[in-house]
């Protein structure tokens, strides 16, 4: 088959990139080879537009065992244990087929984590949908939530947290970002670097079918209206097989059989074999006749590019093959030696005795194109005027708005209790799971405020990182590290590239200031349809450590007669706020600035007071500001409060950063300690009664708050 410019273009390679392929090979590639270059050099696998900027993120620290570049990041949590985690997007597949797209997103991220030798102990997800009024939104929400639940519930990993927001900018491109956290022994981490020429390359898991061929290139292409035609490329997940694969892999990992292991995710057998060989500076030779297939007549091209799920590639130590085979056969999974590690540095594929591919591994993986795309800084946002509104009425409207309404309808469809270690359930600031056999806990959260990122990418990037740090702090956890999922539009447009550059810069500042490195991540670009890009959405997944889970606090008011303290400075910033959007219908203004020094000082103070046992409940202030946060604490505890506050919109609904609400029975001690630490703190009210009461006597019952807060999503979803 002759490779025409049309075939090159349909593989997503530019003429320049194809020229580079010709230079590397010194000849024309065949179709298999072209397919391999195409997926390895796709945005999804190569990070070619973002790499230059991602390199600037801090990725090391005293606790970091493994940073970005492996299947997942690894952080030391003491006592010989490590937390292994990563977040990954499955945006495009979920738009095309919401149930399977979301389900396989969960499956993929789970594999990234147990590949490293960790047992998955928690899942989270960050979702963005289009306007609730858009005709597709309801169907997409229903499918995505069912898919995430269907997969996570079956494999038996609790889904403990997440976020879900709506905005018309996601009408044509929803976001489904899934995160998994696993637990491993710190000295038993498994990596993907191939070693030992002659060692067996082993395929385990499910059989290979024709599903998802070219998923990785699809994930790197803009949508147009005919993309629903791309449906056949969506993979189908089998959580039952995944569960068996987890158990089989972890059982094998008890032994010393594995030299290297890599899951077959995007670009399947291609990326796993190329990446393993590339990292080891070695070659791999595979006999494609030995690959377990589900369908007859599969071509080498199809076998190499299939994205069938629940598959792994391993390199085994000599002599351990039979023991390994017995484990996989016990779990009724396929196990096949499909090739050998070689010293040639080449990827050689055979089928029917013929060589169907022979390319150098190094250039395919290491010499992938890297672009320094032109970018434009975002113009500074104009200041805006915020209107005044009756506070109780405004509170009611905010709590019943799609972004602030309770997401219980979603998380009650996720098994968040399996494993029996869930200490703090979804619905609060961060979730917490105990580490079996210890008193320690892993806290986790995902967060991003896209309306800040679009108004000021740098401030928005910093805010996203800081907010996860604050969420972890608010339960008493020590924030350790993050994983990031950078979701943006088309990087070939300078204004989009400007958003990417700005957000990464802001993230970098915050990570440095908070000693909170990035240990893993994923980039999803080209999230646009017919030129309409999503809001810049750099989702941050934060992971923290609690040494004694009984010391952690929740957002719920614990009883009457406690003092409510506000920690942090309130200037009444309403630019880019939810109040402005929901009450005035304006998406305008600059986001609240993030003072990272104050962030750290306030947060360290709050954590110290929580761990000292002086705090009975804690909640960070974010979307909707003070009054929304107090209402959330009241609803969670079913206890009201009487407030002593200024009733200006800025004070009640402003979104100034680095702030927390605490309840305490020792207000004097806390205030004195705050003053000593240079942390602004003041009394804003007392808990008690069945209503929230403002100065002047205006009030709303907790029952009514709950009715407004809990009803929006179920009502919306029942409106089929």
């Amino acid at each position, binding site marked *: 088959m002759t490779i025409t410019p049309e075939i090159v273009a349909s593989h997503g390679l530019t003429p320049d990139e194809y020229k580079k392929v010709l230079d590397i090979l010194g000849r024309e590639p065949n179709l298999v080879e072209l397919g391999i270059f195409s997926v390895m050099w796709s945005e999804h696998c190569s990070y070619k537009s973002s790499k230059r900027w991602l390199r600037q993120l801090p990725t090391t620290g005293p606790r970091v065992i493994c940073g970005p570049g492996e299947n997942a990041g690894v952080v030391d949590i003491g006592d010989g244990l490590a937390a292994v985690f990563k977040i990954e997007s499955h945006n495009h597949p979920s738009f095309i087929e919401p149930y399977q797209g979301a389900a396989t997103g969960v499956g993929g991220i789970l594999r990234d984590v147990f590949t490293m030798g960790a047992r998955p102990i928690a899942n989270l997800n960050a979702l963005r949908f289009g306007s609730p009024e858009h005709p597709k939104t309801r169907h997409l929400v229903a499918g995505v939530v*069912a898919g995430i*639940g*269907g997969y996570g*519930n*079956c*494999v*038996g990993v609790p889904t403990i947290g997440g976020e879900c927001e709506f905005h018309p900018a996601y009408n044509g491109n929803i976001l489904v970002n899934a995160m998994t956290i696993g637990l491993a022994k710190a000295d038993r981490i498994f990596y993907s670097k191939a070693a030992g020429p002659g060692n067996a390359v082993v395929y385990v898991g499910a059989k290979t079918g024709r599903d998802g061929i070219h998923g990785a290139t699809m994930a790197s292409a803009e949508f147009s209206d005919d993309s629903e035609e791309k449906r056949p490329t969506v993979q189908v997940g*089998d*959580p*039952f*097989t995944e*569960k*068996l694969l987890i158990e089989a892999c972890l059982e094998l990992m008890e032994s010393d059989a594995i030299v290297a292991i890599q899951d077959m995710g995007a670009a399947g057998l291609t990326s796993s074999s190329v990446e393993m060989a590339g990292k080891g500076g070695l070659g791999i030779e595979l006999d494609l006749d030995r690959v377990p297939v589900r369908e007859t007549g599969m071509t080498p091209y199809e076998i190499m590019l299939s994205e069938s799920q629940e598959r792994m590639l391993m390199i085994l130590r000599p002599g351990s093959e039979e023991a390994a085979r017995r484990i996989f056969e*016990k*779990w*009724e999974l396929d196990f096949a030696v499909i090739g050998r590690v070689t010293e040639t540095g080449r990827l050689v594929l055979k089928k029917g005795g013929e060589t169907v591919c022979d390319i150098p591994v190094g250039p395919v993986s290491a010499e992938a194109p890297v672009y320094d795309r032109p970018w434009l800084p975002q113009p500074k946002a104009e200041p805006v005027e915020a209107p005044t509104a009756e506070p109780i009425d405004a509170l009611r409207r905010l709590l019943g708005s799609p972004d602030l309404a309770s997401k219980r309808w979603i*998380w*009650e*469809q*996720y*098994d*968040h*209790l*399996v*494993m*029996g*270690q*869930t*200490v703090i*359930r979804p619905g609060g600031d961060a979730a917490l799971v*105990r580490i*079996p056999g210890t008193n320690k806990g892993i806290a986790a959260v995902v967060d991003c405020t896209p309306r800040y990122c679009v108004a000021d990418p740098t401030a928005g990037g910093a805010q996203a990182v800081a907010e996860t740090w604050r969420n972890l702090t608010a339960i008493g956890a020590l924030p350790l590290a993050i994983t990031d999922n950078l979701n943006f539009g088309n990087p070939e447009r300078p204004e989009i590239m400007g958003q990417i550059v700005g957000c990464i810069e802001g993230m970098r500042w915050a990570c440095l200031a908070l000693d909170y490195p990035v240990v893993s991540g994923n980039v999803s670009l080209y999230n646009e349809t017919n030129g309409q890009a999503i809001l810049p959405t750099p989702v941050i997944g934060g992971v923290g450590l609690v040494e004694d*889970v*009984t010391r952690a606090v929740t957002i719920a008011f614990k009883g009457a007669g406690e003092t409510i303290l506000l920690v942090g400075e309130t200037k009444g910033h309403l630019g880019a706020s939810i109040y402005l959007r929901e009450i005035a219908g304006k998406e305008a203004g600059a986001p609240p600035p993030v003072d990272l020094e104050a962030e750290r000082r306030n947060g360290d103070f709050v954590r110290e007071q929580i761990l000292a046992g002086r705090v009975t409940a804690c909640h960070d202030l974010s979307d909707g500001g003070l009054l929304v946060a107090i209402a959330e604490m009241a609803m969670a505890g079913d206890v009201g409060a009487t407030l002593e506050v200024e009733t200006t919109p800025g004070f009640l609904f402003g979104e100034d950063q680095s702030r927390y609400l605490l309840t305490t029975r020792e207000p004097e001690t806390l205030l004195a300690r705050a003053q000593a630490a240079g942390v602004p703190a003041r009394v804003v009210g007392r808990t008690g009664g069945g209503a929230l009461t403002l100065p002047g006597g205006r009030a709303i019952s907790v029952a009514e708050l709950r009715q407004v807060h809990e009803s929006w999503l179920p009502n919306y979803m029942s409106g089929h």
Partner: protein
Amino acid sequence: MKAAVITFPGSNRETDMLDALERITGKKPLRVWHADSELPKVDLIVIPGGFSYGDYLRCGAMAAHSPIMREVKARAAAGTPILGVCNGFQILCEAGLLPGVLLVNETLKFHCFDVHLRVENSQTVFTSGYSTGQVIRVPVAHRDGNYFADPETLDRLEGEGRVAFRYVTADGVPTKEANKNGSARNIAGIFNETKTVLGLMPHPEDATDPIQGSTDGIGLFRGLAEALA
């Protein structure tokens, strides 16, 4: 009390069950893989929750027909107490050890939240740690927990004191709101004729430690341990 927890491919709440049993009885239970050649002599056999065989075809159907279930049936016939929770309950129904079947929840959705249960009969080896009429709070986590049986079977279950637990409000009333999965007569758990086999959808094992938010499940395991000591 010596307990064995049987796991199938796809079981996923066995750790919760093993932890709860050990926490409350102080003894490590045996973990038995469905394909193990023999089922050891024990005082209690537990089939835990999960998605055995992916819950493909029907929940619990394939596990119910696996060889180890023949041995479980023989032990049940000989009087060994058998406890099936969630998928375990579905398996016991499919295996014919308990009457009826668990259909998909009326909402067609997976449910994960705390429910209140009323103990309907405390005169059994499983429920002696509770008093009849006591209300306990434990979580559910299932998509197919909608108990169904024909009216004659339901009448017989009620008449013979074989309804173990019912979904109720916090103050003990079996309302429609308390019965979110749509189970016949709010039934959450049932016994066999001899009250030595119990199947229930909720997870008492996930309410046995203060960090889990409720310890109301302890009564079941403590009662069993005392009765079988």
